[in-house]
């Protein structure tokens, strides 16, 4: 596999080594990737663009952690389409062709007071460095993490360690509190003064978090997961409407004021390639089956 990759790259180009792969929960994986230049500059809220090999798509993934001394950057991804399934087959010691970053603007970290950090699904990964930074500068951090069911929960202790309080929810009640993240969020808003909310997860979850906080007039930051190609402002694929203005999520974001985001447009644009994604995945599966 490695040989194949170096061949297609002409054997000349720098490639990026996976120093560590962890399978966190079913279909969610962690990669610690050797990328010293990115590690040196990474900040909470930023993302990288990864391309697996010559034929691969460029996809954005939010940075979950980094270590400047080790020169490593950690990303977490869920197997959804062709690229993420292909990534999921890689192992410690394998390489990816490209790993570009740190892209996008970093999170605004300041002493706000009490901040609620809400993570839906595997977004506990991007929430971690933000919660940690917010805590470090003296905020009281209340974190809420939600998953569909018990066996999809990871990094619970990690998130607890950077939070003053942690609330866990599962959709089916198989672990901790049954329900959606918006329920504890609403209760917290009703019971104490909250200065800021940071919500990251699937678009629908971020939309409803923003809807929940709106009546309380609490600034709510969301991290938009638009489709991107280059990730550097060149193509405009990731354009979103915020407060009636067109913005590029890759360079103007990815974080925006959730009360001003046009969620319907965002979600419609995320569906642009549904047919092609299906075709690509089926094609890859057929090819993959033949090979193995």
């Amino acid at each position, binding site marked *: 596999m490695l040989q194949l990759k170096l061949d297609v790259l002409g054997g000349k*180009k*720098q490639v990026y080594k996976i120093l560590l792969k962890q399978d966190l929960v079913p279909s969610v994986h962690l990669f610690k990737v050797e990328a010293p*230049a*990115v590690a*040196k*500059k990474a900040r909470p809220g930023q993302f990288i663009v990864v*391309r697996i090999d010559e*034929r*691969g*798509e*460029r996809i954005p993934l939010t940075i979950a952690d980094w270590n400047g001394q080790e020169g490593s950057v950690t990303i977490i991804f869920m197997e959804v389409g*062709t*690229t993420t399934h292909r990534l999921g087959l890689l192992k410690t010691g394998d390489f990816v*062709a*490209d*790993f*570009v*970053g*740190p*892209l996008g603007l970093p999170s605004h970290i300041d002493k706000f007071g009490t901040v609620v950090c809400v993570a839906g699904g595997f977004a506990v990964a991007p929430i971690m460095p933000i919660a940690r930074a917010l805590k470090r500068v003296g905020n009281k951090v209340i974190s809420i993490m939600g998953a569909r069911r018990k066996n999809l929960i990871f990094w619970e202790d990690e998130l607890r360690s950077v939070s003053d309080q942690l609330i866990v929810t599962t959709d089916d009640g198989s672990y901790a509190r049954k329900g959606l993240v918006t329920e504890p969020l609403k209760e917290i808003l009703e019971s104490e003064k909250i200065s800021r909310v940071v919500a990251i997860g699937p678009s629908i979850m971020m939309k409803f978090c923003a809807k929940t906080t709106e009546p309380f007039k609490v600034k709510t930051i969301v991290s938009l997961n638009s489709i991107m*190609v*280059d990730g*550097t*402002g*060149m*193509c*405009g*694929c990731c*354009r*979103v*409407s915020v407060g009636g203005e*067109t913005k590029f999520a890759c*360079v103007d974001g990815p974080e925006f004021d959730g009360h001003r985001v046009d969620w*319907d*447009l965002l979600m*419609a*644009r995320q*569906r*642009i*390639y549904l047919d*092609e*994604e299906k*075709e*690509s995945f089926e*094609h*890859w599966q057929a090819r993959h089956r033949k090979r193995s």
Partner: protein
Amino acid sequence: MAKLNLNRVQMPKQDPKERAKNFDEVALGYSMKQAREEASRCIQCKRPICIEGCPVEIDIPGFIKAVCDGDMPEAVRILKDKNSLPGICGRVCPQETQCEVKCILARKGAPIAIGRLERFVADWERANKEDLTAPATIPKQTGKKVAVIGSGPAGLTAAAELAKLGHSVTIFEALHVAGGVLTYGIPEFRLPKDIVQAEVDYVVSMGLELKLDSVIGKIATVDELLENGYHAVFLGTGAGLPMFMNIPGENLNGIYSANEFLTRVNLMKAYLFPEYDTPVKKGKKVAVIGGGNVAMDSARCALRIGAAEVYIIYRRSVAEMPARREEVENAQEEGIQFKLLTNPKRFLGNDQNWVVAMECYRMELGEPDESGRRRPIVIPGSEFIIEADVVIVALGTRPNPLIAQTTKGLETTKWGTVVANEKTGKTVKKAVWAGGDVVTGAATVISAMGAGKQAAVAIDEYLKGLL
């Protein structure tokens, strides 16, 4: 004096019906016989004014004479003395407005086909020389380090010239392949990517370092480069920020910037989907808005990936189009439909946010404007509907603001271009030069190369002063 030969040798092309279905190169290039016949038409002017038309001052009669004599190695040597990217320039330079327009035979309507001959010489070298790498004579190293930002035509040329002078050069490229617009923008059928790669390899073989996946402004700022050992910086970052029209419906699904569409097709090879993972919408009726080369490239790509109908929507007439005449003709031959004197008013979508049509105005031409072209004027009440399920907006680009935003003391215009001296490329910031589209706004490959070359001379002067 021999009788003037006014029979310009035509270059064979793929049949329009055939080529509209593939991404192979449209123009097939001269045979040796054709090249020598065309070269023999050159009257070898004592004071050749064609050279004045060339931004990199190639000894045009010199290399043409070598072709005429059949001395191909000599032709290669002369060409490469001034131009490190001849295979690229021979294909995409607008020779008809540069060297060829100056040719004395142009007055008789039959200028020497300098571009075709340049291409022929470059292709001959690639086909006949096993090792394209630079001559073994490595210049004496000066110990001075230069960072070149961007590996498009301006950056590659500046880097090559600086390396020839013995400076240590690092090129930083944001994308995963070098070449800038040559790679992501210009399609395979007009500029094959193995030619770009071969010429990039040639430049890199001069002993410089190419760092891909490296976004300056993110992994390091220009100021940090200067603080960390680089003595000078050249900005050749191009004009990569797409412009939209700011009309209603522009964010509907199916509406692309030309940059996105071309990047998907060319850089990510979406024309080979699903063998390659990146998709692009094929569309049944594709409307491309604009009249430049990028619009022609987009339209012809859309046709090749399988659109049933492709329209060029342009607010003036063919005479005012900024695209090369040759590319307009190629597009027309392939069946691209030109809807002229037409300008979009808004885009119409369905309930799933997909574009289905655009409402357009009919236009008429008034008095010439600042550009010298007749100004398009809306005809009131002329609105009509054009159906389209894919729309590509090709209305120009501006420089990406990342470098300007992260560099202290750089001056920019209201169009986002970097202010630099016209002759030397020097910016107002110490030790920083700039050239190509980042200074001029979107222009040509060769003018960017010319700017890269001039800046290299100025940077060399500056570095000598540091000794």
